């Protein structure tokens, strides 16, 4: 019973990611750019569940988020890399729980996703519009990573505690 409840709650929190990406609340935006919601969920999930679950979650979220955006670019590669890396980090060494560590990982994850977009835009859209070093990409990466880093200690730490409670109770 507890297991079913846990799964339902995991699904509910995961569903919040595309929902919040759709809603993109203005009060959680820096100069019009919101956080990377998927990072806030994927980080605690991969830290707790390991590389395999992290990669699967990364692919799943990548597919969902690509489907709700018009982009000709995909975030699956970046999410797969992050899911694997954070899964490894959770399995080896000391458990990552500190607020600063989570914030730093969230920031790095958001920057990696941004760089992935930047490179894809450069290689696929360069002939028509986007230069390699354009201020818009830099601005988007920094604004999004700062917002993600600020929210990670608040949101991801709570999710990490929630995911950890399952391994203690089940």
């Amino acid at each position, binding site marked *: 019973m507890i297991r079913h409840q846990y799964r339902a709650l995991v699904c509910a929190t995961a569903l919040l990611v595309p929902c919040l990406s759709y809603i993109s609340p203005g009060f959680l935006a820096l100069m019009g750019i*919101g956080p990377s919601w998927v990072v806030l969920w994927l980080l605690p999930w991969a830290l707790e569940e390991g590389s395999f679950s992290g990669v699967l979650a990364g692919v799943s979220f990548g597919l969902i988020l690509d489907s709700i*955006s018009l982009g000709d670019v995909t975030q699956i590669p970046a999410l797969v890399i992050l899911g694997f890396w954070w899964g490894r980090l959770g399995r080896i060494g000391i458990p990552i729980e500190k607020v600063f560590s989570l914030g730093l990982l969230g920031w790095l994850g958001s920057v990696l996703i941004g760089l992935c977009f930047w490179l894809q835009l450069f290689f696929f859209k360069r002939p*028509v519009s986007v230069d390699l070093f354009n201020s818009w990409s830099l601005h*988007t990466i920094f604004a999004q990573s700062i917002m993600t880093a600020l929210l990670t200690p608040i949101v991801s730490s709570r999710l990490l505690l929630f995911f950890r409670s399952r391994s203690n109770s089940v």
Partner: protein
Amino acid sequence: MAGGQQFAIFRWRFLRRLRPWILLIGGLVIIRSTKGALFSDAYAVLTRPFWPGASQREWLQSGDQLAKQIRLNLLEEDNNRLRKMLELQASSKYGVFSVPVISRQSKGWWQQLELGKGSFQGIKAGSAVLGPGGLLGIVQSVTPTTSKVRLLTAPGSQVGVWITRTKHHGILLGIGTNRPQLTFFDKAPQVVKGDVVSISPASTLLPPNLPVGVIQSVNNNALPAPIATVQLLAPPEAVDWVQVQNFDD
């Protein structure tokens, strides 16, 4: 001596009798020289209560608007007929929908709008999306009840436009920033800041002559052709309702 006194009395009486006439003629001369300003003002003050009311003015204005609307319809029909003869894209008023914006991402990696109507309501991929003032973007994909709009500012967005004043054509490219970039085809487009940019009449994707924006700055030294920055007329971050315009196939 007595004769001289009598003459003086006569002259004084003559002038006294003539005084009203002198005053009258003097007054008329003043009125003439001021082009009747005093008369006009006095007339305006006295007749103000009897002036035509606001309702009559509105009636005249609505009549004027109706006449303009009829003339616009006739010109549009004429224009569409000629465009069909030239096998160009025709604009039509019949496929216009007012649609709510249900999700908005005007900045960041994706610059798109999600609209609350889709193919069930007759919206098609490729339709023009208009905000207050001008074109916002193009419907990229539709579901039965929603549509996704790629904004003109989004990277990868390309629209054929022209400068209304000089009739020089170019491509409006979204580069992610609030102001898309206009790349001209000509080396000397003679464009200046403030020129109006609209959809090219030669466009095969969008209805012609939809207003898009205003030239904000021009770089005449760019190679291979000058480029300009365009300030869009319709700000995507502020619209809650848009108009979607289908056009005739």
